[in-house]
């Protein structure tokens, strides 16, 4: 970059070098597939959510007597209010969709493995924040599903030992979900996206420290990396185009397909709808909550089910690079896990009064946790089997070298810090 203004800035702030180092010349593996687009897409959806959210907040009223009507006001009277609201509501689903694909890619290709554990864990933190934000945002329309969803989820905190009842009252600011709950959820729903932006920056710093993984699972040499711009800006923008087509189909042609009809009824604390269901992205976890017959156990199981992903770097003990692509057994495990998630989602959607659904849910819950717990044993056995069967030339060498490199890097780091003399 040149020009007098840029050079004036560069003397005072590392603008050009930053853009070069982190954006345009940032070395990116040349073999990234379209599965690597979804992190970028998540970033775009975050921007869309923040933008639509800020403009919706200009017309929304966080008051239990006005909230429901202010949504109708946005839908009928605010210029393009319907568009802003449908973009925001669809955007929530889109956010979870791209994040789930992003996570599935990480699991499939083993991108969570050393040295990318912290990258994976910051992502896990982002998932929790995203869930909290979505949950609080869902109360704001003040419909029946909003109200009872918030009632059920705040009630989960009742299992806190000794002070459970007080924690629930403190969270709600009332004995039941009420006006005070609504206003604090609105305040926090507005705050959390900015915390998420901060966490995304941390996620990106971690990414740029360890660099992107790639489908081969082998860290490429410098000659195999290409600059991010224009190669991956172009690839990401192409993916964005496809994404926006799908997103627009939902926003313009089927915006209500993801909104529960019961949420068009104003909240009524005296009547629970006969069938309350969370949004689709919470269904598998909700199914796990319901499948455990004991309340405390159910809450713990649900919390654990979301956190299980964080243990993957410890659970996967195979040294074979490249994740499921070169590991047939792990690949089968991966697809079975996806299938189990779908079954759990279905169970979560169905009313719990049907006993066979309950049994299916309990079996699927066991399978969910089992598929994590067997990973250490299966991955080690699979590695032995693959080595015995014969790996392609150079792979064993590479595995040894990667291990050595990692140790060398650690040693060098410690030496530089002066801890090792």
């Amino acid at each position, binding site marked *: 970059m040149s020009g007098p203004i840029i050079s004036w800035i560069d003397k005072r702030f590392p603008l050009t070098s930053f853009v070069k180092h982190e954006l345009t010349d940032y070395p990116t593996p040349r073999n990234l597939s379209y599965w690597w687009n979804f992190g970028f897409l998540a970033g775009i959806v975050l921007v869309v959510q923040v933008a639509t959210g800020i403009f919706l907040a200009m017309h929304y009223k966080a008051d239990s007597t006005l909230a429901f009507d202010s949504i109708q006001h946005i839908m009928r009277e605010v210029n393009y209010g319907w568009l802003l609201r449908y973009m925001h509501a669809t955007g929530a689903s889109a956010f979870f969709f791209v994040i789930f694909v992003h996570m599935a890619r990480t699991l499939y290709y083993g991108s969570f493995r050393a040295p990318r554990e912290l990258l994976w864990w910051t992502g896990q933190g982002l998932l929790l924040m995203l869930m909290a934000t979505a949950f609080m945002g869902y109360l704001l329309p003040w419909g029946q599903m909003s109200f009872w969803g918030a009632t059920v989820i705040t009630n989960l905190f009742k299992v806190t030992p000794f002070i459970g009842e007080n924690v629930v009252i403190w969270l709600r600011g009332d004995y039941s979900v009420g006006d005070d709950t609504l206003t604090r959820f609105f305040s926090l729903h507005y705050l959390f996206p900015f915390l998420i932006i901060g966490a995304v920056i941390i996620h990106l710093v971690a990414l740029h420290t360890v660099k992107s993984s790639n489908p081969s699972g082998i860290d490429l040499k410098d000659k195999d990396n290409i600059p991010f711009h224009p190669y991956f800006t172009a690839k990401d923008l192409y993916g964005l185009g496809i994404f926006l087509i799908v997103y627009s189909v939902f926003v313009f042609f089927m915006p209500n397909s993801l909104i529960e009809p019961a949420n068009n009824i104003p909240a009524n604390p005296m009547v629970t709808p006969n069938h*309350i269901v969370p949004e689709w992205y919470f269904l598998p976890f909700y199914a796990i909550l*319901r499948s455990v017959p004991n309340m405390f156990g159910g809450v713990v199981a649900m919390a654990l089910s979301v956190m299980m992903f964080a243990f993957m770097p410890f659970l996967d003990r195979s040294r074979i690079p490249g994740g499921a692509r070169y590991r047939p057994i792990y690949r089968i495990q991966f697809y079975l896990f996806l299938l189990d998630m779908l079954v759990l989602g279905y169970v979560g959607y169905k009313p719990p009064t049907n006993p066979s659904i309950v049994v299916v849910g309990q079996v699927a819950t066991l399978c969910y946790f089992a598929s994590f717990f067997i990973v250490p044993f299966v991955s080690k056995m699979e590695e032995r089997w693959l080595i015995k069967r014969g790996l392609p030339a150079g792979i064993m060498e590479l595995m040894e070298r990667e291990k050595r490199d990692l140790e060398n890097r650690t040693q060098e780091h410690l030496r530089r810090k002066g801890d090792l003399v």
Partner: protein
Amino acid sequence: MEDGVKGEGNRRNFLIKLTSVVGGAGVAAACVPFVASMNPTSDVLAKAETEVDLSGIPLGGVHTVAWEGKPVFVLHRTPEDIAAAQASNGVIDPEPDAKRVIKPEWLVVIGICTHMGCVPTKEGPGWTCHCHGSQYDDSGRVVRGPAPKNLAVPPYHFETENKIIIGKA
């Protein structure tokens, strides 16, 4: 003087620790009003008493009234209901019926499922919670899980023959 120099380091370490502890305690104390501001406000607390006129509730009928923003079921039980309720002792959370009522013909319970906080629906004898399938009998006792406890009995007393005050025993 040697001792003084040595003592200097110890004193400094001690002062750093002391300042950190005092500073930490100050931050913790400053958090108290923020945390407390999220507890129920005075006007929410003021909603704590509800008066119910029983004369309008027919035999076998149930009225739902709001107390602390929560639904309270007031059930006018028939002699058969009373007999059935007294014959059993509950299933998951055993409790005699006599302990749950002041007058056997009037059952007053908080209409919030003890599982996840949904409002159960009156179906046949007792209530069914459609959220997760819990069932309660005509004494508000849980007969089928996942609810762990019986429907809670709020504090109440008979002001006159036909009037109760919920919120004060």
